[in-house]
């Protein structure tokens, strides 16, 4: 047997995988050790499970249904700013939840544009708080995601089919039945499943817009048991419930999950000759306008209100912004240090399945990990003193599944394309990383790091569990400002946070796309 010509040692990847499994398992065991002290499940816990599943279901449904006509309109019309709009559809993914919530409050809140409008014509005001507010925020985040996934499906239909349709003069109804419906049947369930799973572990939205017995997710219930009652036993039971619900759903969803394609609003639309009627054009324009408005109005309101509030921000906001930046930098560094060796190892193992290691990150929710680690460390040190490193670590684990999905296909491609040449030249180990792998992987690595940085800087999760009043990341500081009705300062902080999230993403992504001349 010739020695297998693997250019990269498997050891660092196995170490990274072991670290991930150990981190999750340690939390799990710590939680398990606390469960026995409690008296089983109470009505409140079941209520939280029911609400979690129900809101995730409706969030996914309401995200996916309008996404179909919006994606169809974007697929068959060229509107001014088309490419920009498609790019913007990716923005909610890196948008800090609390910023989006503030934007939604400005539109749908008590003094929001909608209620002012309703009041002007004598209609009763609508409230954004409660179950429908939670669903609304989830739809705000996930309808753009669903639209992009479904749009990808439309773009995957070969241009030749539309040429044939034009040649035969098929009416829209026949086009739908023969070409579009079969595509939708493949793509829509995947988009639905992905959004359903994402919404199952929702915390920050429920924290800000939900609450109370009728709008508390399991994740929020963990936080409340922990923070308000310091009932670790109950937090542990809820964590197990969360693991069962989210983990189970993630496993089921794995079969229908669509591949995550790195799509940068590339504007290659096949020429379309069908759907020429005036009515259809107006309909498509209306859908695009609706989606753009739903996406852009809250963001615009954040910018407008934020500009006014920037002057009102107390110095503590700037301090917490600095904290957030280094937590995000730490988290991104940790993510890269885990994801690179892990994907290099995964790219070289023949049998699949090992990839599911990274799904542990998805199934294990942030607050479950936080609870577990808290139980582990609080006998020895004050957990608040470790709040920031733990936040950075949990954020890295949460970004890991995305990073692996982004990095693994190009990593495999590099191994296929240059493995032979590298082996022949004796390029292996660190020189292979330095000379071949890292330069080739730079664009997806920059993109993945940018996602991780933006997700981390905007995260409002574990940090709320651990932090004492002296320590805060910017999202937590914003939440506290909102809680004390300092709306102007919160608006300024929101704009700062938005700029940080987009800026950190942009810097990393820009680094990835940098090309030296020659």
């Amino acid at each position, binding site marked *: 047997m*010739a*020695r297998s010509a693997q250019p990269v040692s498997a050891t660092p990847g196995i170490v990274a995988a072991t670290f991930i499994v150990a981190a999750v398992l340690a939390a799990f065991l710590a939680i398990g050790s606390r469960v026995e002290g409690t008296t089983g499940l109470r009505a409140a816990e079941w209520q939280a499970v029911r609400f979690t599943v129900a809101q995730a279901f409706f969030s996914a449904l309401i995200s996916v249904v309008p996404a179909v006509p919006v994606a169809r309109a974007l697929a068959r019309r060229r509107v001014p700013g088309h490419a920009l709009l498609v790019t913007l559809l990716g923005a909610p993914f890196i948008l800090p939840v609390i910023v989006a919530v503030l934007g939604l409050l400005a539109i749908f809140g008590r003094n929001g544009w909608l209620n002012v409008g309703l009041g002007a014509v004598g209609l009763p005001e609508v409230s954004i708080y409660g179950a429908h507010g939670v669903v609304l925020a989830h739809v705000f985040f996930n309808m753009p995601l669903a639209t992009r996934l479904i749009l990808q499906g439309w773009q995957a239909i070969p241009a030749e089919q539309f040429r044939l349709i034009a040649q035969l003069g098929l009416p829209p109804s026949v086009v739908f039945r023969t070409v579009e419906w079969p595509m939708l049947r493949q793509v829509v369930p995947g988009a639905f499943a992905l959004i359903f799973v994402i919404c199952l572990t929702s915390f920050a939205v429920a924290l800000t817009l939900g609450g109370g017995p009728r709008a508390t997710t399991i994740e929020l219930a963990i936080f409340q048991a922990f923070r308000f009652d310091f009932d670790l036993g109950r937090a542990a039971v809820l964590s197990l419930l969360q693991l069962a619900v989210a983990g189970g759903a993630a496993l089921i969803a794995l079969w229908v999950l669509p591949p995550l394609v790195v799509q940068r609003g590339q504007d290659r639309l096949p020429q379309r000759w069908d759907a020429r009627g005036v009515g259809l054009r107006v309909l498509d324009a209306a859908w695009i306008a609706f989606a753009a408005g739903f996406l852009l109005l809250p963001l615009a309101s954040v910018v407008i209100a934020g500009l006014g509030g920037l002057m009102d921000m107390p110095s503590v906001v700037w301090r917490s912004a600095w904290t957030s930046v280094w937590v995000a930098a730490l988290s991104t560094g940790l993510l890269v240090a885990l994801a690179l060796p892990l994907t290099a190892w995964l790219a070289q193992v023949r049998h699949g399945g090992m990839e599911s290691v990274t799904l542990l990150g998805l199934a294990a929710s942030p607050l479950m990990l936080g609870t577990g680690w808290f139980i582990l460390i609080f006998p020895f040190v004050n957990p608040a003193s470790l709040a920031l490193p733990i936040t950075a670590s949990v954020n890295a684990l949460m970004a890991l599944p995305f990073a692996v999905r982004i990095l693994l296909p190009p990593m495999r491609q590099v191994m296929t394309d240059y493995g032979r*040449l590298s*082996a022949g030249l*004796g390029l292996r180990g660190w020189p292979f990383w330095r000379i071949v792998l890292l330069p080739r992987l730079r664009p997806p690595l920059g993109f993945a790091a940018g996602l991780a940085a933006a997700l981390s800087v905007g995260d409002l999760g574990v940090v709320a569990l651990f932090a004492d009043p002296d320590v805060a990341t910017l999202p937590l500081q914003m939440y506290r400002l909102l809680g004390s009705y300092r709306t102007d300062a919160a608006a300024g902080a929101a704009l700062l946070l938005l700029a940080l999230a987009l800026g950190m993403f942009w810097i990393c992504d820009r680094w990835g796309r940098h090309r030296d001349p*020659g």
Partner: protein
Amino acid sequence: MIRVEGLEAAQGDFALRGTFDVPRGRRVAVAGPSGAGKSTLLGVLGGYIPAVAGKILIDGVDVTAAAPDARGIAMLFQDGNLFPHLSVAQNVGLGLRPSLRLSGAELERVQEALTHVGLSDLAGRKPGALSGGQQSRAALARVLLQGAPVLLLDEPFAALGPALRAEMLALTSEVVTESGATMMMVTHAPLEVAEMVDDLIFVDAGDVAPPAPAATVLADPPPALRAYLGG
């Protein structure tokens, strides 16, 4: 020299068998129908496809289980012989040191090799900015620096036009003469390379025939080779 004893290799359903010697400094064309196993043979010799049985010796050293870079073999493939993100000089420099940390003297050798193949002005360019012929020249410059006793060529010039291909074969011939390397070259056009090789190995349905003098074989081909050549 290359010595192959009772070599067997498998790729899926396909099996390759062969026993032959190639004396030091000989140039051998490897010909045969598509799918007969020419590229598999070179892949096994180069260490990219494991041998199931048998031995491969290069200059008396058993390299059957050695890594591709530890066999004293330099190899050029049909495509992907250069890293697109490295400059021409860096690509060539990899022939000296896989770490690319070259001393001043080594950098001079890189420049000499580039001058030799006529690329001295293009050292800083990326392969994407080079023509197909220039890319082949860069790869040959690296082969020159590798200084391996054996050179394997798996149709590296197949994508070039006839005139350019002849030019590259001439340059290859020069490089091989200079280094004194033993050369094996897969070809679909044995007549085209007849003048630059000594021997010909005919591969048919996984059976590797021992090398025979090219001029003799091509003048009076055995039936299978005649059928392959046509006419």
